[in-house]
């Protein structure tokens, strides 16, 4: 065989094999087989009871509407790592005019219901947070919708959130968050509007839902820029450790988030507010060792003050053997608390 031909065949085979692997991965990204499996198994039947949880220990999964979430969704995985709870956002995209398609809402509600049942069947407590974003925007980068759209999608989202809350009540979901990260940079609603909306929706959620209600926020902008949120009436608050910042900054901002939550709660006369900390990577999308550091920092420093300890499972990092063992060890300690 000619030397060039041999090189060509070898290199071509290597690159084509990589093409194949990438194709398989992309195909897997879009398939809903993993999600469908769960939905089929746990649809129908009587709801499972609402659990009383002293300390929420578990995984905060990425949006269940995404295929990547399916990498670490099996309830056996959660039990094996020592979790007693799972938190997840469920989303409905809004259209270009800020409205939501009723069919989409119904489909997502039923999908979320199936997931809730799937986890609750083995005794896991469920924290469900509802979120929205523009159709076609898949959550990467800062995205700031025009003013009229902000008003429209937020107003229309009230009914969507209430619909999810109704389902949460029917299924005895332990904790419900009316809007996941309403204050995040890419929604850019401004702290005042975010705070007002969360107060406005609270009354409507209370009418249909009797579990704990959570103010799940990013808090980064508020803490950095010195804004405050009205936490009156909320049972819980949760935040993720900040990304895209150096470790000393992450540590300092995490401390600030917790102290500010306490201060806002005190201002609102809400002394019983339970705070859940979620340890995430320090950069996007992050590496397992970053989550190890963040969990040590968050759980170690704030073990006595937090009511919940969760790990953000961005890109299924938790399956990394070193991180898995580390988190398992932490969860064992925290469950002894």
């Amino acid at each position, binding site marked *: 065989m*000619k*030397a*060039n*031909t041999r*090189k*060509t065949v070898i*290199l*071509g085979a*290597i*690159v*084509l094999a*990589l*093409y194949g*692997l*990438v194709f398989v*991965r*992309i195909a897997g*990204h879009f398939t809903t087989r993993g999600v469908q499996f769960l939905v089929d198994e746990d649809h129908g039947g009587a709801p499972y009871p609402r659990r009383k949880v002293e300390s929420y220990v578990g995984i905060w999964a990425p949006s269940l509407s995404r295929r*990547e979430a399916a*990498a670490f969704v099996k309830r056996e995985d959660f039990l094996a790592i020592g979790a007693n709870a799972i938190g997840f956002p469920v989303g409905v995209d809004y259209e270009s005019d800020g409205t939501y398609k009723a069919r989409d809402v119904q489909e997502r509600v039923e999908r979320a219901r199936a997931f809730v049942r799937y986890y609750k069947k083995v005794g896991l407590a469920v924290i469900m947070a509802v979120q929205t974003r523009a159709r*076609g*925007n*898949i*959550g*990467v*980068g800062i995205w700031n919708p025009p003013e009229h759209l902000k008003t429209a999608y937020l107003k229309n989202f009230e009914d969507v959130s209430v619909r999810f809350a109704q389902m949460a009540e029917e299924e005895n979901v332990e904790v419900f968050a009316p809007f996941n990260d309403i204050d995040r940079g890419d929604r850019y609603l401004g702290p005042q509007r975010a705070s007002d909306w969360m107060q406005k929706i609270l009354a409507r959620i209370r009418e249909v839902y009797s579990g704990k209600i959570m103010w799940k926020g990013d808090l980064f902008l508020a803490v950095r820029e010195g804004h405050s949120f009205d936490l009156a009436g909320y049972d819980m608050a949760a935040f993720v450790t900040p990304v895209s910042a150096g470790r000393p900054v992450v540590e300092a901002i995490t401390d600030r988030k917790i102290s500010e939550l306490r201060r806002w709660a005190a201002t609102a006369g809400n002394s019983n507010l339970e705070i859940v900390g979620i340890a995430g990577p320090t950069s*996007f*999308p992050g590496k397992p060792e970053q989550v190890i550091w963040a969990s040590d920092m968050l759980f170690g420093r704030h073990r006595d003050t937090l009511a919940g300890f969760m790990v953000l499972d*961005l*890109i*299924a990092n938790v399956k990394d053997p070193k991180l898995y063992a580390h988190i398992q060890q932490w969860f064992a300690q925290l469950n002894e608390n």
Partner: protein
Amino acid sequence: MKTEMTAPGPGIAATLNLLIPGLGYVYIGRRVKLGYALIALNVLVLLYLLSDPFAFVGVFALIIKTRLIIPAAALVVGVSVAVDAYRLVLRGVRFA
């Protein structure tokens, strides 16, 4: 001692360069360094996509944001190197 060998088909070189930019150059033995560099770049991108599931989200978001610019640029590069390899073969290639 160099041996003159039958030149490869220009179509094969062009097709290889179109499918895997750089491979056609390696096949015809011309612009070999460029060929290896393009293949290495290709492999790096593929490994990045394989190593990080979230990269897909990023890539798709980028494509959505830039609409047709990235696919069009990739097509232009692919077609360019394919045409280049085709013409190189027609001009005569020596296999050593």
